[in-house]
């Protein structure tokens, strides 16, 4: 018998009696202590919804705000055990606005209990919960039809709801559904079968949970271990630490290191106390190798046969978890097992309407929205599809500026195999080309409000550099928008794409050895960061042309401010669209106060 606890999630709304059920299970399994019962009785009188009777829901709603409002805001983890098994329950909120919390609870669960009010049957929210459960890869569902006391413990009601749900589950690909009639409030079928549902004939909920088999199909699958940490206390010892995500390992076993593809053999499987005979899925261990191989955090150790794919483009399910919507083209940090890379969503294939499963076109994803997206990574990573291995197919997206966790994703498949693509190793490189021109390839990036003087400065600088015999080129906002980017408008998503293209063009030009002068408003920090990341350290010079808005508006060379003020021009930076000033530009020019010549001199000085 496994001693691993059964981890499950309970889904249902406030009124379905979810917290009451958990509280009841804790109580019935004798996991509520007397002092906790005493404070529960006290709290029930103060906050309870059972007119002074013991309100088991208060056992699990832990935050003050939750108790005052009688709702569950966040995921709570509860622990209880019976003589046969240990359990960890993730109690999650049922409201639509808490989809992300439900996904969080489901991500580590083996089983889900879906609560349904017997009087109401299968509701929209039941379908939503089932859809999230299925998407998160939970294969076992207990359909708990609660409040049977309020429908007279009627068998027909139970059968009708069960068969309706079985159809829903089949449509979602949930392979196992166990239905049970309950009254959490009265305690019917919570522990032992209830005399009031003689037609049911099954186990009580606790008995059912005790008996659920946990399959470990990955235990005998090919070996996989993400490398979390390189242990190198001294020159003599070097070990790769990680937790086995699939299969088993023994000394002398051959392993391949991905993405490099280098192969070696395991010398020792180390754990506390010394070398071990072997280790298996779920174990945290340290491996040493027979050869001196290059291995680092984020690599995946794998058996050489049936090695997983390595790719840099995926299709994935994505749940958005931030107030600030997903913007296609914007770079985010992506964490997949122990590997962290930069990723952009290249396209949103469709959004999934979480209540019905309907597909709809979408240009972005908002908080709690789910979509199927294509992702592009800045380097290839080894992975398994989520359906094969949750550990090796799940990822989170982190905002590069705020460091919020903004999205959670599940890889479906690779769009192309990066293994098959070999970057042409360029013999004549960037430095060689620039050397021939007698210069250092650089990108000077001017950012600032419209009318701040970016183009004027870039032109003056261009002339000065040209007379000095340097090879230069100017990329100007207006010029590029007439050609390369004429398909783009001024929404946030289009502005992101605008900058991405310009940055890539600037990169190619500087790879050709040129000094590229880019004059773009480029209002968002994250896009300027993306541009900077394309260039080698020191080759990207951010110049903040800091002219006060009033001055820009006074100049209004193109008459755009006037238009924007009249409401004829939407999303105009400084008026109804934000400008995020650079925090650490290489040069900060106060173009309103100092002469243009002195500004140009300052840039030239920085370049030399």
């Amino acid at each position, binding site marked *: 018998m496994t*001693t*691993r*606890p059964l981890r499950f999630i309970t889904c249902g709304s406030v009124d379905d009696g979810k917290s009451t059920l958990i509280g009841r299970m804790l109580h019935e399994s004798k996991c509520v*202590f*007397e*002092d*906790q019962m005493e*404070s529960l009785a006290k709290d029930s009188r103060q906050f309870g919804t059972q007119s002074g009777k013991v309100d088991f829901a208060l056992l*699990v709603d*832990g*935050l*003050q*705000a939750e108790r005052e409002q009688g709702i569950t*805001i*966040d*995921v*709570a*983890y*509860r*622990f209880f*055990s019976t003589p046969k098994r*240990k359990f*960890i329950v993730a109690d999650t909120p049922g409201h639509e606005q808490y989809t*992300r*919390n439900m*996904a*969080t609870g489901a*991500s*580590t669960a083996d089983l889900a209990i879906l609560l349904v009010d017997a009087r109401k049957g299968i509701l929209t929210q039941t379908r939503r919960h089932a859809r999230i459960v299925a998407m998160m890869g939970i294969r076992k569902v207990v359909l708990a039809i609660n409040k049977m006391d309020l429908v007279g413990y009627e068998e027909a009601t139970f059968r009708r709801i069960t068969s309706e749900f079985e159809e829903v589950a089949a449509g979602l690909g949930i392979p196992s559904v166990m239905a049970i009639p309950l009254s959490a409030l009265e305690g019917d079928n919570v522990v032992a079968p209830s005399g009031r549902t003689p037609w049911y004939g099954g186990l009580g909920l606790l008995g059912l949970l005790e008996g659920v088999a946990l399959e470990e199909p990955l235990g005998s699958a090919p070996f996989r271990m993400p490398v*979390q*940490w390189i*242990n190198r*206390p001294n020159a003599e*010892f070097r070990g790769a*630490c*990680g*937790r086995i995500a699939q299969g088993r390992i023994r000394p002398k076993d051959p392993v391949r290191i991905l993405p490099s593809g280098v192969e070696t053999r395991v010398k020792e499987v*180390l*754990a*506390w*106390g010394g070398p071990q005979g072997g280790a298996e899925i*779920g*174990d*945290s261990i*340290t491996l040493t190798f027979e050869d001196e191989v290059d291995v680092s*955090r984020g690599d995946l150790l794998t058996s050489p046969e049936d090695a997983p794919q390595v790719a840099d483009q995926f299709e994935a399910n994505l749940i958005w*978890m931030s107030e600030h919507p997903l913007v296609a083209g914007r770079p985010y*940090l992506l*964490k997949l*097992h*122990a590997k962290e890379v930069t990723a952009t969503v290249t396209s949103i294939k469709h959004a999934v309407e979480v209540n019905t499963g309907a597909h709809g076109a979408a240009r972005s994803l908002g908080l709690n929205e789910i979509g199927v997206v294509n992702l592009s990574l800045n380097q290839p990573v080894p992975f398994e599809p989520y359906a094969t291995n*949750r*550990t090796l197919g799940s*990822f*989170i997206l*982190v905002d590069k500026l705020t*460091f*919020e*966790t903004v999205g*959670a994703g599940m890889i479906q498949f690779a769009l192309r195999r990066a293994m098959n693509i070999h970057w042409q190793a360029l013999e004549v490189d960037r430095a060689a080309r620039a050397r021939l021109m007698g210069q250092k390839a650089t990108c000077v990036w001017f950012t600032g409000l419209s009318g701040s003087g970016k183009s004027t400065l870039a032109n003056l600088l261009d002339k000065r550099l040209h007379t000095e015999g340097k090879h230069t080129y100017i990329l100007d906002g207006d010029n590029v928008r007439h050609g390369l980017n004429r398909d783009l408008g001024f929404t946030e998503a289009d502005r992101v794409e605008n900058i991405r293209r310009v940055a890539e063009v600037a990169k190619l030009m500087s790879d050709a050895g040129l000094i590229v002068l880019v004059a773009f408003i480029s209002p968002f920090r994250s896009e300027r960061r993306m541009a900077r990341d394309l260039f080698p350290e020191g080759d990207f010079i951010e110049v903040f042309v800091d002219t006060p808005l009033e001055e820009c508006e006074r100049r209004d060379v193109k008459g755009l401010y006037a238009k924007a003020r009249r409401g004829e021009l939407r999303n105009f930076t400084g008026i109804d669209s934000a400008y995020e000033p650079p925090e650490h530009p290489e040069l900060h020019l106060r173009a309103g106060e100092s002469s243009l010549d002195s500004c140009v001199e300052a840039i030239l000085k920085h370049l030399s």
Partner: protein
Amino acid sequence: MLDRGLESESIEIIREAVAGAAKPVMLYSIGKDSSVMLHLARKAFYPAPPPFPLLHVDTTWKFKEMYAHRARMVAESGMTLLTHTNQEGLAAGVNPFTHGSSYYTDVMKTEALKQALDLHGFDVVFGGARRDEEKSRAKERIFSFRSKGHRWDPKKQRPELWNLYNTHIQPGETLRVFPLSNWTEADIWEYIRAEEIPIVPLYLAKARPVVRRGGAWIMVDDERYPLEPGESPEVRRVRFRTLGCYPLTGAVESGADTLDSVIAETLGARNSERQGRLIDSDQPGSMEKKKQEGYF
């Protein structure tokens, strides 16, 4: 039965936290949970010692046997121990008797902890808290984000899915990391027995001098304890389920003087372990409030 999965999960958490940290530290409170956490940290980096120091926030009111145990474990692990006491609090004579447990905890524990973290500039702090201990802890992430000033905002927690932990923070922000989040009190005891982890002898029953305060037995560990006029401690067989500052930690009467009998008692207990901790119940929602202020 012992669950090896818990051990492996905790080791994974510890390694992940260290990999993402600039300057990590492990809070070491000398209690049983700290003992298990320290043991797991040593396992995580074996054969090397853990690449971070231990930090003990010393209120000066711990049991004498705790200080002795601390010295032993530091020697055995080969790790560096940092201790910190809120000197202003000490100079002002803040103590658990005249100032009340709430104010005392705030000054000598919460404030002292924040001082120590700021002083050394630690960005990742391991703590031995478990989710089964208390209701607001049940809601806390394993990697718990703290804004500048070490504040916890329960409504603004980062989503935490699978075993993927977001370790990114801005300068001035910190992470509290709880490797024992998914352990229960029974798990801790079973693991201590299986791994033969040394613990402070106060966890085992013995005849000790105690007085009755607020429904709990308080051990008179030194002459600083204020007795009522004419009062003298009585000797009873007691043990402790948790260890903190001795004047604030209630003992239970027990005959359990071996690990086996302690475990048997724990599994059959009818009261929660934190019942003996007076600071949990000194105000409504008290643990949640203390946590928001920066308490562990």
